[in-house]
């Protein structure tokens, strides 16, 4: 809310980080199926916050722009649910798999970040 009111995009990730931290603090033993909903909710909140911050009252926005953006957010949320389901299912099978799987998970996380960085540098230089 503060980010939207003050029109400061830098405030948004900290609020999401705080919300995620609060959720992590409530986790108990066992796999929490609500994580899917929380993930989708956080993404929706982030997208709507950035949309509100980027919105300029002086700009006359064509309806196609708003419709397209709304559709993109909806598609992202749907993709989130699907991707989250895959992750949870994989995690459910992997409970008790041990150190090897943890190492594989860490390597996958690092690899994902490297891929993102690679894509970012490729699009910046084009």
């Amino acid at each position, binding site marked *: 809310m503060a980010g939207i009111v003050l029109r400061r*995009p*830098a405030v*948004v*990730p900290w609020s*999401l*980080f705080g919300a*995620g931290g609060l*959720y*992590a603090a409530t*986790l108990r033993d066992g*796999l*929490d199926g609500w*994580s*899917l909903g*929380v*993930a*989708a909710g*956080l*993404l929706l909140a*982030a*997208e709507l916050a*950035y949309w509100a911050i*980027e919105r*300029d009252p*002086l*700009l*006359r*926005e*064509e309806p*196609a*722009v708003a419709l*397209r*953006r709304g559709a*993109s957010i909806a598609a*992202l*949320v749907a*993709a*989130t649910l699907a*991707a*989250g389901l895959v*992750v*949870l299912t*994989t*995690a459910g099978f*992997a409970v008790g798999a041990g150190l090897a799987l*943890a190492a594989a*998970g*860490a390597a996958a*996380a690092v690899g*994902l*970040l490297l*891929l*993102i960085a690679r*894509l*970012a540098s*490729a*699009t*910046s230089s*084009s």
Partner: protein
Amino acid sequence: MTRFAAPKLGAYTGLVAAALLAALVLRRPELAVLAAPFALAVAAGLALSERAEVRLALAVTPARALEGEEVELRLDIVAETPIERLDVLIELPPGLAALGPAAVSLRLARGERRQLALRARTERWGGYALGRIDLRARSPLGMHVEEGRATELASLRVYPREEEVRRLLAPLETQLSSGNEVARAKGDGIEFADIRQFVAGDRIRRINWRASARRSELWVNETHPERNTDVILFLDSFTEASRGDRSTLDLAVRATASLAERYLARRDRVGLIGFGGVLRWLLPGMGRVQAYRIADALLDTEIVFSYAWKDVEVLPRRTLPPQALVIALSPLLDERAVGALLDLRARGFDLAVVDVSPLPFTPPGTGLDATAYALWQLRRDALRYRYERAGVAVAEWRDGEPLQVAIEEVRSFRRHAARR
């Protein structure tokens, strides 16, 4: 266009890293689920991101307008690449006021052409370079932003609106060509001048039969011919007094344009001298072409500060024909213009001064400021007296008053001066 990462890209990437790290450390796969949508958004946003390319073309209709008229700006946008969101802001220079939204957000497909129309009102005369257009393009999912600016795509010339002038100043002397001014000399014309005795060679139709019957000998009518005049408009552009968006220079330019139009309509020759930091002149000429030349020259008039001393010696001789009527429009603030006008009078030119009063643009203030203001007014009165002693008619013209009032004041002074 300059491309850079949107704040969202860094924020999402940071959240993904933090969530994955927390998932590894705390051994909670739920935290990896939290990271998944943001990672997906970043990956999809980067994959779909494409450098935006647009072509712009701006046209303004009409390209020449009068003050207070409306013009229409049409901006053609052609997208060479698909653009998810393009923000277009058309910046208008001071002197033009937008009558509709000047900023719009739109989505463009590859090769799509769109036309944006914006109506604007011309509030001040001048030459305008239009086309300062700010663009901002966002990629799909908003991971990249590109910003750019286009400049000087079209030009607009706004001419000063005319002040209403019903009667013009008559010069002391006329020229040899035909015109609308009744000459003092006698010759062929239609304005009755006098009667005299018939001499051999006089036309029969000039005989004044009533006078001839009374005197029992032939008497003929004499007339004044219609001649044209040379009028030089002297525009002082050394300095100005201004308040808000109005200034003495605006008034002087409008008055100059009005007088030029009226004198040219009478088939008089009109010349222009812009006496200021930048010296400009137009040799006297007639007709519509001269009207356009004067209008274009006036559009380029602006205050250019200069400390260089200038007098009438710098003017080419042909700009000031002998027996020309010189009408000066000046706020009488700069010594150089004041001195040049007195010099013209000393050289025998027929001179009239319209004092474009700076008083309405300078509030008197309080205390010492009010005393200084009163002293300044006294100095101006003394200057006016100095001109009048030299035989120069000076009429004060204030913002909001018709120009005709000042012209009538000059006519009245010249009429009474002629009688003395």
